[in-house]
């Protein structure tokens, strides 16, 4: 348990550094540090599937963010209605924390095995699906609807961004504008 707490404190410190540091590249590196702390905490909680996926996605995000930020240093907008913004965020955090406290009270203790549904998966996977990776069997056999929704969300996001950021359409529109002018 103690290493999980240490890792969580490490992740929180990295997140605070990522928010507070002025340089955008250092902020990206701090976000990466928080992500790798999450990878190690997944490993200590004995979830190698999640750890592999998180590690790979983390590397990809880090590469993309560094490639995107290495040239551009975007300024942070800190001016404006800071009083209202601070009050709204404090009120939101207070509401979130109070509801989160109430929700956490009704959960079982962290780390205690809860064998209502997972017992079925553990006993039935090897017999009925013949897959030795139970996580994969749950993702793609027992709860395939979830994965279908996930894939649909990813597909829709990619299609949306691709149609907004594509190069050809924008250029032809600009050319048309120039011609009409």
């Amino acid at each position, binding site marked *: 348990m103690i290493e999980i707490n240490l890792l969580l404190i490490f992740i929180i410190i990295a997140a605070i550094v990522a928010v507070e540091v002025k340089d955008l590249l250092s902020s990206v590196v701090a976000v990466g540090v928080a992500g790798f702390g999450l990878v190690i905490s997944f490993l200590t909680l004995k979830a190698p599937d999640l750890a592999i996926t998180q590690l790979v996605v983390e590397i990809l995000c880090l590469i993309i963010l560094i490639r*995107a930020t290495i040239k551009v240093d975007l300024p942070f907008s800190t001016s404006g209605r800071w009083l209202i913004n601070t009050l709204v965020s404090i009120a939101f955090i207070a509401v979130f924390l109070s509801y989160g406290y109430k929700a956490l009270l009704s959960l079982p203790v962290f780390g205690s095995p809860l064998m209502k549904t997972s017992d079925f998966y553990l006993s039935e996977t090897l017999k009925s699906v*013949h897959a030795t990776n139970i996580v994969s069997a749950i993702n793609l056999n027992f709860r395939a609807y979830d994965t*279908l929704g996930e894939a649909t969300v990813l597909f829709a996001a990619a299609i949306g961004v691709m149609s907004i*950021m594509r190069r050809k359409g924008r250029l032809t529109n600009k050319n048309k504008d120039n011609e009409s002018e």
Partner: protein
Amino acid sequence: MNQNNGMSVIVKTVTRLLAGFILLYGIHIVLHGHISPGGGFAGGFIIALSYILFMLAFGKEEILKRVPQPMISLLESLGALMFLAIAVFGFFGGYFFANWLPKGIPFKLFSAGTIPISNVALALLEVSLGLFGIFLVLVLLKFAPLNEEKTKKK
């Protein structure tokens, strides 16, 4: 050194040696998703990362030559349609997402019915998403000077 030509000779040589192995490792993780930890999501991103390593070492033009953008769109649509087709073909076994293929022996590569095929479909989706991330970055970084060039030519 010119940025478009990528990094130094050392990096290029090491990348030429390593990129293929990373690609193979990604394919291994995808195909063994139902036996060992991993699966379509992680393996697909590892395959995409091998291409990204190639791009970082050799520059943008080289990867655009090898993997054109219509191919990415094709891969992505193929992955999504394949996953949906697996779900619909489940009606042969009685219901949506039924695992109707022969199950085989556990710990063998061809076992667990439709799960390996679903892993491959998800991997195709993830590869295209990961590669698509590169093109997003390329477009983001290249967009402003490209417009200026076009207007200058006019």
